[in-house]
């Protein structure tokens, strides 16, 4: 997951609607099962899916009252090597 990508998607949700992301996810999830894709291509789709799900989580947090910066940082802290003991 990449913070700038998630941030950009969160801004998109803010300006439009999360339904766009949800529907795009359905398309990408379907596409990821298509025959003929090589591993690298599937991983690119997977990365997009991952960022989109991440943006939905962050948007949910913001909706419940968390500041955007805190929501983004909190989410990234959790998903990127948050446990390293």
């Amino acid at each position: 997951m990449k913070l700038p990508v998630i941030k950009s998607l969160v801004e998109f949700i803010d300006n439009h609607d999360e339904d766009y992301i949800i529907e795009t996810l359905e398309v990408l999830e379907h596409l990821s099962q298509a025959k003929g894709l090589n591993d690298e291509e599937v991983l690119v789709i997977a990365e997009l899916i991952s960022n989109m799900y991440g943006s939905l989580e962050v948007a949910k947090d913001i909706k419940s009252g968390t500041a955007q910066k805190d929501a983004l940082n909190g989410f990234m802290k959790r998903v990127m090597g948050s446990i390293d003991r």
Partner: protein
Amino acid sequence: MKILGLLVALSLISCSVNKVETESCEIVTVAAFDIGSGSTKMMVADKNPCKPKIKTIHIEKSLAIGYAQDLLNNEHQGGELRFSDAIIEEGIEGMRKLNQLANAFNPQKRKGVATQAFRRAKNGEQLLQRWRDEHALDARIITQEEEAILGYQVVQTYHPTEDGKLLVWDMGGGSQQLTWFDREKQEFKFFNTNIASVTFKNRVLEWLGRDEDQNSPNPISSDEYEIAFEQGVNWIKQTLLTTEGGQELLHFIRNQAPEIRALGGVHGASLRRQLGLSPEESIKKAELIKTIQKQAGKTDAEVGGDFAATDVTNLILVRALMNVYGIDEYYFMSADLNEGIILFL
């Protein structure tokens, strides 16, 4: 002491230390499935098999699949404690969708644990076998003690706390586990009960005299909320008296004033969303009461989401539990059992 405690836990949940020592330390991608009583949660993450480390969480996805409600419906109609054909179909379809999504991340391992509803259902094991065959899912039904220790380990991983000073409170759709470590006896202690989200909501339906075919008690008026709260307190008090570990739990909370960390969908999703809390914030009794007043009188549509039927009763349930347990504040964790599955199983 902490090491000894963890060793007990490790042996109980079949996490072999030797296996870790001989395994390659290359990062592996694991898909974990927490097959709970009210929802199935999937997480795909990279982990280092040589130490408790999640490198990256790729994706998390949750589906509302009401196994506990299905069992209660069958029980209510005098039937056997078996999952219906309808819920089996829903479970198969849900697992297919989640695995399809997980496939995009090419996981090397797929592990799953099933909890209370599967412990009770006579055909729960059959459904797990189907998933083993169809998705190569390494899944099993865990005992309530194993579930409790797994939750305890997740909390200790995120928030290392002196054993004997930590109480882990895990509550889902069909059961709740409170777990602590007795330093004198050097053993884990549990209070396990089936007072949980779905079971409580169904009791509320009875207490408020709702129609038998009604699935949701909403809208709940302020007067009805008082009835549900009082009845809930009585039910919990009775359960504490008659269930192993109940009195020890009260003694532990009163004498040790432990740090209380909560896991599971009731705390981490339902309450968190309704109270508008950020991760790691605390849930306070006063805030809870305010939120109940705010949610009273709302229909399912006004509450919103897949879990509207249980959201308001979850608030009442937690308030009643806090009252009886003698808790004024506790912290919820955004982590859940899937982290434990990935790290320790």
